[in-house]
């Protein structure tokens, strides 16, 4: 009797789960089919401000597409953005990825960090779901041979090379100290920078490490100071770069600070205070003002969500790339969308987006900026 009851319960549960699975692609009241798109970024933890920015960028795109109306295969379609939080943590990223795959999303926009994008990409690859990262720049992401992995931003190879050459040739650095935050992004960028700087004739006098939760760098900076560098390169994000700039000043370390796109944002200037002055950093792509759709995007975004942190336009474009592929395929079926994605040729907010064979954006530009009078001022754009 009891075992029969148990079997009944299991059957009911199984049925409920099965029905739940069928219920994933529901219909709205007006008969439009709901297609879910995942968006993953750190929404809690030290990089939450950047994560929310990415999600808002994607959300703006989804809302605009829904407002304009989208028809696939003769049926009206409404996109629904499922925002997930990976805490910038590789382990959490894989859990979230599995969750999204299980819930049957049509595609994933994300993740924000390279360190989370790479482990998560295996799950999307196995499920054959398109993944477009707005901001993961590590080379390894698209070097895995996954045909479903794309990104809409120049990768670290391009950025690190530009930075290394710029440090030695334009800034005239001879003795260079390198610090990275041991994430896939920070380490990858620092490695590429080191290669390019050495090739250009610079001498690397110190290689130090921190982590992406740290606030105290006095110990490594003191050690670096003993080696008399004239330039310090940091591969990492603004929550570390800000205090680092302050601590360099406090310790009387006279070297200039140079970094990548992780610190080329508003928050860095706020955190570094007057120590931000003169700091140089690069960012893939063009400055927002110089982007084809930049000023207009800024106006639409800020009316809804407030100031742009940094990657929101890329998240927006990632959604647009996806929807364009869906339109061409006339379907939201992942396999059909994947067949169309490599043919992308879209004039987006951030620039003209085309993919190479690996899924990287072709001909990505890198722009260098310097803090002048408390704001990032553009120095030059290197193709």
């Amino acid at each position, binding site marked *: 009797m009891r075992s029969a009851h148990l079997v009944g319960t299991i059957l009911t549960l199984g049925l409920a789960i099965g029905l739940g699975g069928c219920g994933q692609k529901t219909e709205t009241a007006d008969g439009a089919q709901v297609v879910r798109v995942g968006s993953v970024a750190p929404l809690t933890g030290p990089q939450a401000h950047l994560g929310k920015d990415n999600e808002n960028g994607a959300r703006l795109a989804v809302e605009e597409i829904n407002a304009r109306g989208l028809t696939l295969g003769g049926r009206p379609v409404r996109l629904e953005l499922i925002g997930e939080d990976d805490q910038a943590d590789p382990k959490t990223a894989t859990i979230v990825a599995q969750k999204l795959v299980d819930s049957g999303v049509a595609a994933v926009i994300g993740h924000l960090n390279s360190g989370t994008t790479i482990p998560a990409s295996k799950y999307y690859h196995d499920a054959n779901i398109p993944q477009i990262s707005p901001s993961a720049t590590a080379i390894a992401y698209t070097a895995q041979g996954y045909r479903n992995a794309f990104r809409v931003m120049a990768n670290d190879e391009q950025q690190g090379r530009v930075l290394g050459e710029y440090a030695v040739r334009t800034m005239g650095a001879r003795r260079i100290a390198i610090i990275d935050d041991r994430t896939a992004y920070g380490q990858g960028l620092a490695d590429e920078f080191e290669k390019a700087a050495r090739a250009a004739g610079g001498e690397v006098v110190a290689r130090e490490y*921190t982590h992406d939760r740290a606030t105290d760098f006095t110990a490594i900076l003191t*050690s670096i100071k003993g080696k008399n560098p004239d330039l310090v390169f940091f591969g990492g994000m603004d929550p570390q770069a800000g205090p680092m700039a302050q601590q360099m000043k406090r310790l009387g370390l006279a070297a200039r600070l140079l970094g990548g796109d992780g610190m080329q944002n508003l928050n860095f200037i706020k955190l570094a205070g007057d120590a931000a002055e003169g700091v140089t950093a690069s960012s893939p792509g063009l400055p927002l003002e110089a982007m084809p759709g930049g000023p207009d995007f800024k106006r639409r975004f800020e009316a809804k969500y407030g100031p742009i942190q940094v990657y929101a336009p890329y998240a927006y474009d990632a959604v647009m790339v996806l929807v364009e592929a869906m339109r061409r395929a006339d379907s939201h079926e992942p396999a059909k969308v994947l067949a169309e994605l490599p043919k992308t040729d879209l004039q987006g907010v951030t620039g003209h987006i085309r993919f190479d064979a690996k899924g990287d954006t072709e001909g990505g530009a890198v722009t260098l900026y310097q803090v002048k009078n408390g704001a990032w001022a553009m120095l030059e754009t290197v193709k």
Partner: protein
Amino acid sequence: MDIFIQQLINGLVLGSIYALVALGYTMVYGILELINFAHGEVTMIGAMVALAVIGAIAGSALDLPGLLVVLAGVLVAIPACMLLGFTIEKVAYRPLRRAPRLAPLITAIGVSIVLQNSAMLIWGRQYVSFPPLIPQNSHEILGAHITDLQIFIILLSTLIMAGLWLLVQQSTLGRAMRATAQSKEVAALMGVNVDRVISATFLIGSALAAIAGVMVSAYYGLAHYYMGFMLGLKAFSAAVLGGIGNIAGAMLGGLLLGVIEALGAGYIGDLTGGFLGSHYQDVFAFFVLILVLVFRPSGLLGERVASRA
């Protein structure tokens, strides 16, 4: 040599802050044998409240000297944190005082998560930057740089720790605290109001946390809803290193952990010929912690735990 002295100064400043936070852990553990995991979050709330006040004054028409503004922030943060600590004890720990020891430990973690997320909702995900109100005058001692703020942090922590030591050793409240730590039941029989002593412990610990929170945010120039986690973890380790439950131990453990971290990060690369880099700084600090605990399981200054009922 100047590099060594600089590392020592770095470590002492960091260690003073650890020590202040560690005192909160160790006082509560000494009396309740409870690891108050929410303590790091109280530090964070202290920093956030002080920054909110400082931001409001700095943004208003009042033109007060910078240090006065910071002082006003601290003076609001201290009672705010005391009230918070008092409430946490009353709501989350007191009803569980007779429950198995695992229960309050889990509520402590719960309180910590609640505080973290409340702070995220109130102050947002953004990093809050500390306005440049404190002059960063730098002095040179034997080739090393030390700022007024660093000197102030070391001095103030030392003063507070000395004051706390006097309070615990000399005052009536201190005697009641020590008695409660030895045995709640016997202390109660001797006429000590145990509940009041425990509340007082939380009030004092939270006030120290508030001060430490403001120090950290002034020193690093930022505050964030997440900052209490790592700080709490380090301070807890410092308390264990010194001997948890022992007040002098928390001070020693804090200072020691700060110095070990600084020297470890500064020299580990050179000492191992680049084989181990500065990313092993925490490994180094915790390796020392493990080593100490292997030979002295109750910490550097800890008593035998078994003697406590």
